Structures are given as structure tokens and as C-alpha cells.
């Protein structure tokens, strides 16, 4: 289907005047380069939405997980509630929140944050539960208080699982934030929707989303390698 307009134009590299390409709704690299500055602001708006939501979601889930770690009865209820928040479609969530928080960034951030809670909570709990029992026993026996044990032994050992959750949360939130414009929060979704029939625009805006996701994913991956040097050490 992409080939049809290309064929009509007699090939990709012949007479690439921007007007013809755009008029035929093709994939126009020249147009993309000329109009690239249009995407800069939405890109950073989008990035801001993602970073703020993920950070907020992480902080809340972390607090919940630390509480639930000592009081196991909390695990069930918290999982249920964050599960429901995760299931509610973000688009619907934007407008369920509308009477409370109106249009704009706040609504988008609340909805995006709510989505990440289950991912973080489950992964942090799984990480903490995966700490070897003998390390915990030895730690207690040597004289760590429960709080010292948590911060110096359990959390560092749970880090790989926590960071895995962070990668998932970040990449999915990038995709979700493309809908934020429905709530009036801008972002790359706005660029997508502004010229939704123009293939170049859709591919460019969508592609930038993927690029952002990949970049953030790599960032977390690098952080993981730096923070967990022991996970690479193998028996001599």
C-alpha cells in the first residue's frame, strides 16, 4: 500500500519535490527534515509526562511495598487496588478524572501514574521475596535491625527485579502518553493527531515515541549494570 503512491511517483528517488510527495501522502524524508522543529516541543512535553508519571508511580509503589513487606496482609488488597487502576483504560481514566482535576497535565499524570503502580508494586515485592533466606538469617543474626536489613541487604539484592519493572513501566508509559493529548496535555500524540492522515507525520511522531522508549530503556539498563556489579561476577 505504501508502494502505490511511490509507484505513481515513478520511484523514490526521482523528482522529490516536497509538494508532490506530500500531496500524494507518501513517505517524505525531505518534509520530515524541513519540519522537524515542529516535533521538538511535543517531544519534550511527552518526555516530561513520562518521567514525572514514572517517578511518582515509583515513589508511591515503593512506599507501599516497604509497608507490605513487613505487614503481609497488605499485599492482597494493594494488589487488587493497583490491579483495577491498571485495568482501567487510560482514555476512560482521563475523563473519569475530568470532574475532579479538569483538563491538562495533572489529569494525564494522575492517570499515567495509576497505570504504573501495579507494575512497580509487583516487581518490587517479587524482588524482595527473592532475597535468599540465608542472607536474611545471617544478617539478622549478626545484628542488623529490621530497617538496616531492609536497606543494606534486601533492597540491594532486589534491585535487578526493581529495575526490570522500571524498564517495563517506562516503555509502556511512553506509548500510553501518546493519548495524553485527549486530556489536553500535549505530547507526541498531539503531533500524531494534528495530521493523522499524513503518513509521514504518523510515522515520524510514532517513530519518535519508539526512539524515546528505546533511549529510556537503555538508560535504565546502563543504570542496572552500574548498580549491580555483583550480578555479573561468576565463579572463577
Amino acid at each position, binding site marked *: 500500500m505504501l508502494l502505490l503512491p511511490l509507484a505513481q511517483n515513478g520511484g523514490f528517488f526521482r523528482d522529490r519535490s516536497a509538494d508532490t510527495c506530500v500531496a500524494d501522502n507518501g513517505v517524505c524524508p525531505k518534509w520530515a527534515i524541513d519540519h522537524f522543529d515542529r516535533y521538538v516541543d511535543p517531544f519534550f512535553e511527552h518526555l516530561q509526562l513520562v518521567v514525572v508519571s514514572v517517578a511518582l508511580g515509583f515513589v508511591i509503589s515503593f512506599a507501599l511495598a516497604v509497608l507490605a513487606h513487613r505487614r503481609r496482609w497488605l499485599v492482597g488488597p494493594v494488589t487488587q487496588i493497583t490491579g483495577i487502576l491498571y485495568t482501567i483504560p487510560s482514555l476512560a481514566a482521563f475523563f473519569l478524572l475530568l470532574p475532579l482535576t479538569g483538563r491538562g497535565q495533572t489529569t494525564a499524570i494522575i492517570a499515567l501514574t495509576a497505570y504504573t503502580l501495579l507494575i512497580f508494586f509487583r516487581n518490587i515485592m517479587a524482588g524482595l521475596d527473592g532475597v535468599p533466606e540465608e*542472607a536474611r538469617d545471617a544478617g539478622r543474626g549478626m545484628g542488623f535491625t529490621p530497617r538496616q536489613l531492609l536497606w543494606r541487604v534486601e533492597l540491594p539484592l532486589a534491585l535487578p527485579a526493581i529495575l526490570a519493572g522500571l524498564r517495563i513501566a517506562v516503555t509502556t508509559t511512553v506509548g500510553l502518553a501518546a493519548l495524553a493529548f485527549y486530556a489536553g496535555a500535549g505530547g507526541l500524540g498531539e503531533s500524531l493527531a494534528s495530521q493523522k492522515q499524513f503518513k509521514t507525520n504518523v510515522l515520524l511522531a510514532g517513530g519518535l515515541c519508539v526512539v524515546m522508549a528505546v533511549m529510556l530503556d537503555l538508560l535504565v539498563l546502563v543504570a542496572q549494570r552500574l548498580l549491580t556489579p555483583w550480578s555479573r561476577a561468576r565463579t572463577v
Partner: protein
Amino acid sequence: MNSSNTAQAEGPSAHPQAATLEFREVTKVYPGSAEPAIRGLSFLVPAGHICVLVGPSGCGKTTAMRLANRMIELTSGDILLDGRSVRERRPAELRRDIGYAIQQIGLFPHQTIGENIATVPRLKGWDRARIRRRVDELLELIGLDADMRDRYPAQLSGGQRQRVGVARALAADPPLMLMDEPFGAIDPINRDRLQNEFLRLQREIRKTVVFVTHDIDEAIKMGDRIAVLKKGGLLAQYGPPDELLLQPADAFVEDFVGADRVLKHLSLHRVADAPLDPPAADAGPDAPRVRGSDSLRDALSAILAAGGDRAVVLDDVGEPAATLTIDAIRALTRAEERALEA
């Protein structure tokens, strides 16, 4: 009597950093359980001694050990460390004064060997230089290269990890050490080596140690005093290895130490301990040659293997210096028994 490869030295500890440990009518009942796990357990471990808790599965030996550092709480009775009840101190603070080495070791995977060993010193707030010196000292003590301090547990062999576990327990120079089958997860050859190394260590540092094992041979080898526990934490007998082997208190202990207990007892003594006869011309060319430092058990085995009733004892240069007869071995055993009855 002087046995050099068992920890049988008597007397107060030369090292000031060893405490006495006393169990007084200690009882532990788990909630929801009809039978107590430990019932009225009482014994005293003098400073600088190794006390081995031994018994069949489920007898409560590990529970008893864990009561001492309050990993499990007492139901009734008391445990006194240097005369002071363990209940008086906050658990975390108490534990920093007690060395703790468990069977699965429990090294922290995310920390280097050096950091692992430095755990309790850091908790106690030692300064960096002192910690560094102590880690170096301990690495040498357990026989590891100094450059191991920056490796991670995953990079070490099982035997090395076990040694690091012991070093970690010793790090803050605690007056009491609790060890729960610390050599249990190792193959027999390395276990033997580690036991010998630990005994050598103990000769230098003389700590008070409570050592839990299910292996009677390990108990006999390692212990100054042995506490044999029956199911329910009942103390069947508490005494030095000689006493357990030659005068088992009841059928249970006799059964537990094994039918070869007299032979086990012989392995605790050297040829030189027995009443030897002068070198005899009629010893015969078939008589086995032994040295003064060989164990009596091995000597007896050699005599029996040769089919005779005596062995030639060689001196340092390999010349016959005395004769060891089976009668002499029997005499030693009888003398020991009489000494115990006294």
C-alpha cells in the same frame, strides 16, 4: 594426658575476650505446639571452651543455639552471657557481640568478601583504617589471599565461602561464637581440613564456642565439652569426649556414640600416652612400626593387621625406642575409666 589434635586443654581462657555461657532451666514451647521443643535445659560453658551440641534430628540443638542470640525467644528460664541475662539487652545490639555462622553461610551476594567480613565492625562504628586492618588479618587467618577481598561470593568455591563465613563471624572479636553445622555443606576431605584449621585457630584465639552438629565424630573431634540432646531438648549427658565414650550415661547416649566407642576413644589418644615397655629384642620382623605421635586407634589397627600383639615404637630418627602392646592399650583405657569414676 596430652592430646595434641583435639581441643581438650583445660583451664580458664588465656584470651580475655571470651565469655562464659550458661543455660538455666531453659524451656521453649512454640505457639500451637503441645510438646516443648526444649525442656529445662541447663549447662555451663566455661570461657574459652568449645561446647558441641549434638543429637538426632529434631532434638532441638539448633533451637537451643538460636535461643542464645535471641533469634528465637525463650519461653522460660534464662541464658546468661558472662553472668548477664541475654534478655536484658536489645536483640540487635546483643547479636553484634556474638559471632554467628550458619550452615548455608549466607554471605551477602551483593557485597565483596571484604565488605562481608567488615559487616559487624561497620555496624559497631569502627573507623575505616581499623576495619581494613582487621579484614587483612582475618583473610590471613583463614588462609585466603589478600586480593580476595574485592571478589564477590559467587566467584569463590564452597570451601572458600565457608571460611569467609567463619571470618565474618570472628570479625568484631566477639566473646561468644555460635556455629550451626558450619562445615556441613562441604565434602568430607575439605571438611576435615576446615575442622583442623578451626581447631588451630581456636588454639590461638581461644573463644567460647557453641557448635551444633548431628555428626558424633565431628563432636568428638571438635568439642571440649559435648552436650548430647534427646528429642525435646532433654540433656542426656554433658561432659568431655572421654566421659561420653567411656561412661555413656544411658542407653541412648551409648547408642548415639556408636558401638565402636572405645575405638573412638582410642583415636583421641597418642601412642605416647600409653604405658610403654622398653624396646624388646623379640618384637619380631613382622611387628608394625609406629611413632609416638600416631593415634592409638591406628596403632591398634596396625597391630591387629600384622596378626601379633605388639608394635615397635620408633623415635624421631626412626630407631626403636619402645614397645607398645595390646595390654598396654587396655591398661590405658582402664586407667581412664577409673579416673572418670573418681
